[in-house]
């Protein structure tokens, strides 16, 4: 085999692997949407579940998922922004910089079921909130913190240095510079971080299964100590009823809706990210 042939074979093999990776996603999308299609209707997403989810729609499940997503990002975002700003603008010691990076990576790698159980011990038991949407939102906030933090930090660190220098040279104090230079020019990173965090929170099941959700008999929570129903747990329970075809169809329908929500957010994050390079480079 000549060198050129080898090179061709090599690039073909890599191309095949790439195609394979893409086909995984295509397969999942096809499997979910083709099966969920029959259950999908306006009624399905606008009415509540009956007969333990085997009949009826998924209105409160959609509500619960969205509530957990947005509550968790609301809690997470100020923390993520604050830590990213502290790390990039105030933390001088490279030892602590490294230590903090390892800390965030460890939190990111934490199995979500462990995070759920530990979170329940602290928020549910120790603080006495119990099994509730707030407990779930707090756990999810901890879970998506590294994702949001990393996106924001990247945006801050790639901020053009001459912006920072100009801010400094005009005599702005660090807090003034953060408000005038850093935050306004990392806004896309902050939005990206929020959307990626939302998408992760929307897909999470294990961390909230026993800490924030109830399967049936819940609607819109009246207080912070009440659980919600979510799409994720709904799918999990319905999928176990393999003998009931309507229940299964509803599970696929709910999965389609969940995928739709998460996909929408990831696409949003990507389109915002591509606008990050909006400043004309000279």
């Amino acid at each position, binding site marked *: 085999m000549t060198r050129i042939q080898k090179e061709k074979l090599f690039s073909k093999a890599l191309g095949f692997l790439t195609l394979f990776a893409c086909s995984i996603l295509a397969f999942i999308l096809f499997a979910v949407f083709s099966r969920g299609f029959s259950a999908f209707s306006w009624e399905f997403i606008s009415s509540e579940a009956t007969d333990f989810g085997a009949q009826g729609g998924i209105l409160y499940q959609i509500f619960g998922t969205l509530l957990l997503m947005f509550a968790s990002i609301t809690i997470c975002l100020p923390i993520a922004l604050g830590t990213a700003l502290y790390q990039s603008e105030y933390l*001088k010691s*490279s030892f602590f910089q490294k230590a903090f990076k390892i800390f965030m990576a460890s939190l990111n790698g934490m199995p979500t079921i462990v995070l759920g159980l530990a979170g329940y011990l602290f928020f549910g038991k120790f603080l006495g909130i119990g099994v509730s949407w707030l407990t779930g939102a707090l756990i999810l906030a901890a879970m998506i913190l590294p994702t949001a933090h990393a996106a924001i930090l990247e945006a801050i660190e790639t901020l053009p240095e*001459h*912006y920072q*220098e*100009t801010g*400094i*040279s*005009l*005599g*702005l*104090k660090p807090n*003034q510079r953060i*408000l*005038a*230079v850093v935050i306004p*020019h990392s806004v896309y990173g902050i939005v990206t971080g929020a959307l990626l965090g939302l998408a992760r929170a929307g897909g999470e099941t294990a961390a909230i299964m026993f800490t924030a959700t109830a399967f049936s008999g819940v609607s819109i929570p009246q207080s912070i100590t009440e659980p919600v129903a979510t799409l994720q747990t709904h799918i999990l329970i319905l999928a176990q009823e393999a003998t009931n075809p309507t229940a299964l169809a509803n599970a696929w329908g709910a999965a389609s809706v969940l995928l739709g929500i998460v996909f929408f957010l990831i696409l949003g994050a990507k389109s915002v990210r591509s606008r990050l390079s*909006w*400043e*004309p480079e*000279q």
Partner: protein
Amino acid sequence: MNENQFDIRIENTSLYYGSASVFKQITHYFASKAVTSVIGPSGTGKSTLLRTFNRMNDRIEGFRATGDVWVGGQNIYEEDIDVYALRQSVGIVFQKPCVFPKSIYENVIFGIKRLQPERKKEFADLTEQALRKVSLWTEVKDRLNEPGLSLSQGQQQRLALARTLISKPDILLMDEPTSSLDPRSARAIEDLILSLKENHTIVLVTHNIGQAKRVSDETIFVCNGEICESGPAEKLLENPCCQETRDYLNQGR
């Protein structure tokens, strides 16, 4: 008001990055209300020296200055110095014009908007004054709300200068302010430098010998971590006494 406000004096100053020294024990009194150009080969620390005068180097890990650096009557590396006030009285203009993706007006008031919010009512007047000083007023007065990035490079550099001048600094530092501009815009900046020296002490880092001749009163030549030679610009550039200076000046010919 004291006359010291226009002073820059360095006495036995050494500058270091970590353990590497950039300048060793240099001493120089910069002429007040005049233009001093700093010339010398690339990588000899001209920018580092310039950025020492408003403590822009503080951000760089491992940077250290020893000896005395007197700027505007203060020994600026002493502990109780208000470095933020110092930077307002010592303006700097960089090589590449820095314009924020905001309107022309917002760019001019970028600093004072945060630093002197109580003077908000004067901002419009101050903006006009600053833009007049940099001869940009007639060009932009009807489009102050248009994006600053819509201006040409030369106009952007004058805008950056206006943003610095609006807080009325006594000292102006210029780090190769024309090296990214076309010759015509560069001349406009040079004319500005000449008009500004009446009320400002200006230190100009430049690689352009012609520019140093045209605008500076004094010149210092730095090389190998030292000030090899300093003196009236004309004399130093036409008839240098030090061999290094002669070699450097001859390269360009």
